[in-house]
């Protein structure tokens, strides 16, 4: 029954989206950090999604396209610089470098991730209902 594959497809999407939500959470938490454990300012992270073909009994099928996170990249744009000579982390010119997280961008990312998560959960619920009804066929 090919419908059982839906749980694998949507399940992979849900796990990818929750990973994206995780990254957004750590980005938002570090909006105002000045230095990480290595001394440098925190860099915003982004997840990379890729289509992941799956199929029944080892046979790949284009109709079963799940999602997987291939890598987490670091945003290399320079961090926000604020003039604050009294700050202990200020450099020679009196500027403090904060993280390069754009909080508006992250909020948009968060909403998009949670919507996609909900959609995929809904797909799984519908598939479950249909399969339950299929099991009761002929009764």
């Amino acid at each position, binding site marked *: *029954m*090919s*419908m059982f*594959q*839906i749980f694998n*497809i*949507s399940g*992979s*999407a849900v796990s990818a*989206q929750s990973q*994206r939500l995780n990254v957004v959470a750590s980005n938002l938490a570090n909006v105002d950090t000045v230095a990480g454990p290595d001394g440098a300012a925190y860099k915003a992270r982004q997840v990379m*999604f*890729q*289509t992941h073909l799956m199929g029944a009994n080892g046979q790949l099928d*284009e*109709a*079963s*396209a*799940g*999602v997987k996170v291939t890598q987490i990249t670091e945003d290399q744009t320079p961090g926000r610089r604020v003039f604050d000579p009294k700050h202990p982390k200020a450099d020679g010119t009196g500027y403090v470098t904060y993280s390069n997280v754009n909080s508006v961008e992250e909020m948009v990312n968060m909403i*998009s*991730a949670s919507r*996609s998560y909900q*959609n*995929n959960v809904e*797909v799984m619920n*519908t*598939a479950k209902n*249909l399969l339950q*009804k*299929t099991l009761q*066929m*002929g*009764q």
Partner: protein
Amino acid sequence: MLDRLTTGLEFQTQALALRAERQRLLASNIANADTPGYQAKDMDFARALREAVGQAPGQASVTHAAHLSQSPNGLATSTRQFAIQAQTNLDTNGVDMDRERAAFADNTLRYEATLRFINGSVRTTLDAMRSHNAAV
């Protein structure tokens, strides 16, 4: 004689298998709504079903013992095509979420309808087989 009982059911069975196949396709599209470069796919359901049951509905398409009957999975593959994009995105993702959700709801309902047709015809057959004298 016995195949007359099942030919009506055969058509609905093919339809159900193809509906399940399309459901999987739409679930893949929804799962890949945020994947860059993914193109939404859909199938020509009418053509797939027509090919699955032969020209006349209710008649099997195999006319010779040596003919290979086509599986619903194979038909779903041959009638698969890329969905036409309503608008282009910067990341070339071709999933239109509104349309996919609408198609998913539509397909769900039609799957349930097909299930109900199958249940109905099974019940009709059972009723016909029941003895007249048996206590209801």
